[in-house]
């Protein structure tokens, strides 16, 4: 067999699969066959490229042409034009929103320019279902290196010195965590990979597992060696079928190669990995809840201490890290702690993966060095706000985080800075909001989530969050007073102060941060009965301007509740006591006579 002269990398992440990347692959393969190129060109399904906004993405190698929004129908043209005739298919190239120029190489795209990929190093680069490609990229070399030449203490020291901190939210130093578990005395220990990514709007871990599952397996084995564990468990959401399948494939391949299992690389080190399915409970991202869930119980957290490092799964010392944390381990071992610790800020080293979403032009998965500013992320990488609207806020940290504003845009992103601004790193969700988003509604959205996901074990979280939600609802209905804002704050603070686990201890953050940063907006709701963003229906009034209305009766006819009355050819009126504020009349009016106040 000759060597492939070209590779076509097709993104096969969940997002692009939803847009039928499988159809693209099969059409590409048949087009190649038709043109007798199937022995020269290899089609590779890779993990997520990150640029989900413009998916499905197809990249041609070696000339690095980056095609966006490809459909299966485009496959024939790609093969014929790009491969046979050597001409780029212009219409599928990315258009720079500023210069309006077509850019063919992803390196020159704003979305990729400021990224630095460590955890995502193999995503969109290798075929995640082929262990050979991982090995070709130094896969399992880090594990081999420590097994051959290091003691667990030495290997742990590298992680400690690198300054790597937990990427799941808390930011606890990873090396220190390993050391605690290593020092715990027990006949059995466990390594657990927390892949129960539950933040709404976050999909970092899923992308890593789909795009580079072996890096997680390798890191877990390294961790096992360091802490003295021979069993790894991956707790993964059942909602991630693709990631589960790729993990299973990866585990089988690694077992066949003997890279996990018994006597790995002839060193006598044993380590094997099993998959445990989550079942849809956000609180299971909390490590004690996760452990209970793996034990077949309700995912209710327990008070720490004892920490899992002392008493975890089945009562044995257990080290829990999240997917992204693990994905950072092999490069750190191979390139050294110094290399890693030179990236990022003083206290937050390395990079962070964010799922950039909301009202930005470029929705997608990005990896940036710590210390980058929110402005760079939102405007340079994210390509600014959709539809030319005004930036209003960015929410980081999901339901545990807060909303940051204009004034925070130039603060370097790291664990401490985000915390100080009233938000948190969280697992990496980053939702951008524009002038149309009402901050009370945003806080309400997150509280709605927390109320549904609270496990119910402790009173402040079970009842307190419900009350927080109800109070926010009252505000959005214009039924609150300024006095209530003080009570809202007290309740939020007490929930933070008294809740049993991280979920409740952080759930008031969306409320507190919006209250701090958008005090005026809250005041407008409670004092003036107005929603400045025009989102809170109850505070809106539809009015017909009698000067502009010609009495065409169109509005009358579309109104679902007969709230509009008036004689033909005379100005109509809306009875606001009946109006349900559906907006149908506004859409229908051809004379601009209807407005919202």
């Amino acid at each position, binding site marked *: 067999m000759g060597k492939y002269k070209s590779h076509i990398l097709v993104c096969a*992440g*969940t*997002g692009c*699969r*939803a*847009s039928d990347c499988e159809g693209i692959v099969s059409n590409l393969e048949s087009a190649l066959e038709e043109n007798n190129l199937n022995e020269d060109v290899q089609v590779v399904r890779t993990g997520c490229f990150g*640029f*989900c*906004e*413009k*998916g499905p993405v197809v990249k041609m190698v070696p000339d690095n042409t980056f095609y966006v929004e490809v459909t299966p129908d485009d496959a024939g043209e790609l093969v014929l034009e790009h491969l046979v005739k050597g001409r780029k298919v212009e219409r599928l190239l990315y258009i720079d929103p500023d210069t309006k120029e077509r850019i063919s190489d992803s390196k020159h795209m704003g979305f990729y320019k400021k990224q630095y990929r460590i955890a995502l190093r193999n995503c969109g680069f290798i075929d995640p279902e082929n262990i050979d490609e991982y090995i070709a990229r130094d896969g399992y070399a880090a594990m081999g290196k420590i097994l051959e030449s290091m003691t667990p203490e030495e290997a742990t020291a590298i992680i400690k010195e690198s300054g790597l901190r937990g990427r799941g939210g808390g930011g606890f130093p990873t090396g220190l965590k390993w050391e605690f578990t290593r020092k715990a005395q027990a006949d059995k220990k466990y390594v657990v990979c927390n892949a129960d990514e*539950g*933040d*709404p*709007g*976050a*999909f970092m871990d*899923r*992308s890593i597992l789909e795009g580079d599952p072996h890096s997680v397996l390798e890191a877990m084995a390294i961790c096992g060696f360091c802490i003295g564990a021979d069993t790894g468990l991956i707790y993964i959401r*059942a*909602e*991630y079928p693709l990631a589960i399948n790729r993990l299973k494939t990866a585990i089988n391949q690694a077992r066949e190669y003997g890279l996990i299992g018994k006597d790995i690389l002839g060193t006598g080190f044993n380590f094997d990995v099993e998959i*445990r*399915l*989550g*079942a*849809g*409970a*956000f609180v299971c991202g909390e490590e004690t809840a996760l452990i209970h*869930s*793996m*034990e*077949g*119980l*309700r*995912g*209710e957290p327990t008070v720490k201490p004892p920490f899992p490092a002392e008493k975890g799964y*089945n009562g044995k010392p257990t080290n829990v890290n999240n997917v992204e944390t693990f994905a950072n381990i092999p490069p750190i071992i191979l390139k050294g702690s110094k290399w890693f610790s030179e990236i990022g800020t003083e206290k937050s080293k390395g990079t962070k993966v964010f*799922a950039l*979403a*909301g*009202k930005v032009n470029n*929705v*997608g998965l990005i990896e940036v060095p710590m210390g980058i500013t929110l402005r760079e992320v939102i405007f340079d990488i994210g390509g600014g706000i959709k539809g030319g609207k005004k930036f209003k806020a960015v*929410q980081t940290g*999901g339901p545990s985080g807060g909303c940051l504003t204009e004034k925070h845009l130039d603060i370097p992103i790291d664990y401490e800075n985000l915390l100080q601004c009233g938000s948190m790193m969280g697992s990496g*969700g980053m*939702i951008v*909001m524009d002038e149309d*988003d009402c901050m009370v509604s945003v806080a309400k*959205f997150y509280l709605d*989530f927390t109320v549904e996901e609270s*496990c119910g074990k402790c009173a402040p979280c079970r009842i307190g969050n419900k009350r927080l939600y109800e109070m926010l609802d009252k505000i959005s209905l214009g039924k609150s007073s300024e006095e209530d804002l003080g009570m809202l704050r007290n309740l939020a603070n007490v929930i933070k102060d008294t809740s049993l686990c991280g979920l409740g201890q952080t759930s008031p953050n969306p409320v507190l941060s919006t209250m701090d940063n958008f005090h005026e907006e809250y005041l407008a709701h409670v004092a003036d009965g107005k929603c400045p963003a025009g989102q809170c229906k109850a505070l809106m009034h539809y009015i017909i301007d009698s000067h502009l209305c010609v009495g065409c009766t169109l509005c009358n006819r579309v109104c679902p509740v007969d709230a509009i009355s008036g004689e033909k050819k005379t100005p109509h009126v809306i009875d606001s006591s009946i109006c349900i504020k559906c907006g149908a009349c506004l859409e229908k009016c051809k004379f601009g006579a209807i407005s919202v106040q």
Partner: protein
Amino acid sequence: MASVKLPESKIQELKEVCQKYDNKGSELINVLHGAQELFGYLPAEVQEIIADELNVSVAHVYGVVTFYSFFSMLPKGRNPISICMGTACYVRGAEKVLDEFKRILNVKVGETTGDGKFSLSCLRCVGACGLAPVVTIGERVYGRVSADDVKKILSEYA
């Protein structure tokens, strides 16, 4: 107390699922996943058999089933509709889409239409945020859905 009669062959399969996990109570969640795959949902009788096989109380099994949103005690429709309510989808209008499904199908979230054709549920982030708002029906994924599209989408399943 049984209201649903289970076919014997399925019970045998269910017991095999339990055996696959060594009938260990600590494997309850894996077993429930297997059972739900087998039956499409987890009726009371299935939970009783599992409790018996794993030697845990039925109350415990039920406590676990009701804790996790992935498990359902209601049979799903032939075309299960899931609307992503992740933040990205939410800010891009998922709620309006949901309302439209509710209105047209005349069911609440978690319910199945009378003819068993559709069931409606919400889920948290399928991870296709670039396509927000996202709706899945069975294996199919619909991206950038607006309320106006709902009728058309449903008509595909006529």
